[in-house]
């Protein structure tokens, strides 16, 4: 377990899963803070950027609260989850949204080939996991996804998943880590991944 004196801040904005992330950390013995205060976010040891919602309204909200600049300038480890991951990228097809541009990748809409269902809801397998966020225990195992938009595989992909086509289940560039799936809802496996993040 990581040093419990570390200060973990979950960025507070109109995202649906803020409380679920808080609870997940509590189960690991960590009392995180939920905050939208730039000062508190900037000085945290680690920052979690959760997300459930729609890209353009969320980006507009972040800009209005000046949180976009705060996130861009973070130097400590940051974990983006689901929409949080997509917003770290350059651009999203979801209502043609310019995102934070921290990871040079684009977010695209799933287009079914053989009548696959969209959104991609449920448990799917991770493969080719790499880097400090993952370890061999997660290779080939199931995590929980809920999304209609995805990030293509690219230079910053640290975990992959297959639905309609292979896509990025995890991304990393410098101090910015991200997962498309919800570690806070992915059972014991998700807890392992959160623990790995807390150990960074």
């Amino acid at each position, binding site marked *: 377990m990581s040093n419990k004196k570390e200060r973990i801040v979950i960025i507070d904005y109109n995202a649906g899963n803020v409380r679920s992330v808080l609870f997940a950390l509590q189960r690991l013995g960590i009392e995180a803070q939920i905050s939208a205060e730039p000062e508190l976010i900037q000085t945290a040891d680690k920052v979690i950027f959760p997300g459930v919602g729609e890209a353009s309204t969320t980006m507009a909200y972040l800009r209005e609260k000046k949180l976009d600049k705060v996130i861009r300038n973070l130097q400590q480890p940051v974990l983006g989850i689901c929409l949080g991951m997509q917003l770290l990228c350059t651009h999203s097809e979801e209502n043609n949204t310019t995102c934070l541009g921290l990871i040079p990748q684009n977010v695209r809409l799933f287009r079914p080939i053989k009548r696959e*269902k969209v959104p991609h809801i449920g448990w799917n397998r991770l493969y080719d996991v790499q880097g400090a966020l993952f370890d061999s225990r997660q290779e080939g195992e199931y995590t929980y996804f809920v999304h209609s938009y995805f990030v293509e595989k690219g230079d910053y992909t640290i975990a992959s998943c297959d639905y309609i086509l292979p896509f990025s289940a995890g991304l990393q560039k410098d101090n910015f880590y991200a997962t498309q799936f919800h570690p806070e809802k992915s059972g014991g496996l998700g807890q392992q991944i959160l623990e790995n993040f807390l150990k960074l």
Partner: protein
Amino acid sequence: MLAKRIIPCLDIKDGRTVKGVNFIELRDAGDPVEQAKIYSDQGADELIFLDISATNEKRKTLHDLVLQVAARLNIPFTVGGGITRCEDVSSLLECGADKVSINSAAVRKPELIDELARSFGSQCITVAIDARKTDNGWKVHLNGGRVPTELNLFDWAKEVAARGAGEILFTSMDHDGTKSGFANKTLARLSSMLTIPIIASGGAGKKEHFRDVFKIGKADAALAASIFHYNEIAIPDLKSFLKNKNISVRTTT
């Protein structure tokens, strides 16, 4: 490969499960949080809590329950029963529910689906449909199946999807409680007609019924209550059975 989901359903009244259960591990048979934790440990992929409390004060205990479940569980869960307004949904989601399920209110006011999908995203809006086969085809029923409508199941399912529902939870009232298998033909028709996931409900009695609902009924997920509550089928056994039948399921280590 996306796994087929197994979803136990718990009926809740005044913060307690309606039917007692006979798990040996369970100290308090009516405690939904404890029961939910057991299902989650057994490898349930999701849970659904259906609140059948009648009054508003009693519904407040639902919020406490949702908070406790969200604190204890690390798998997704849906809350349904008596949701009629946007505010009902936002308070449940804030307490930590991942999705909500609406039923009668959507039939009475279909625009509610659009409103909820716009406000919270389609992914957290499940529309539950109860239907029964009549001489004039499959008809939607309200209020837990007590009130028949003239609405055709397939027309309504299409409309629900077009209005932005993220999933459909379809219960065949003809199969519910019979333990003779799911309404596979009807489910297959719904599933091939729509591009959103279908959760099948009503009729689970043995493991083979789950194989059939995925292979023949083309369902994305299957829900059951009593067979899990009374431990007639244990979730780990069900999952290894399905795995042996080449159905993709999540097995936990």
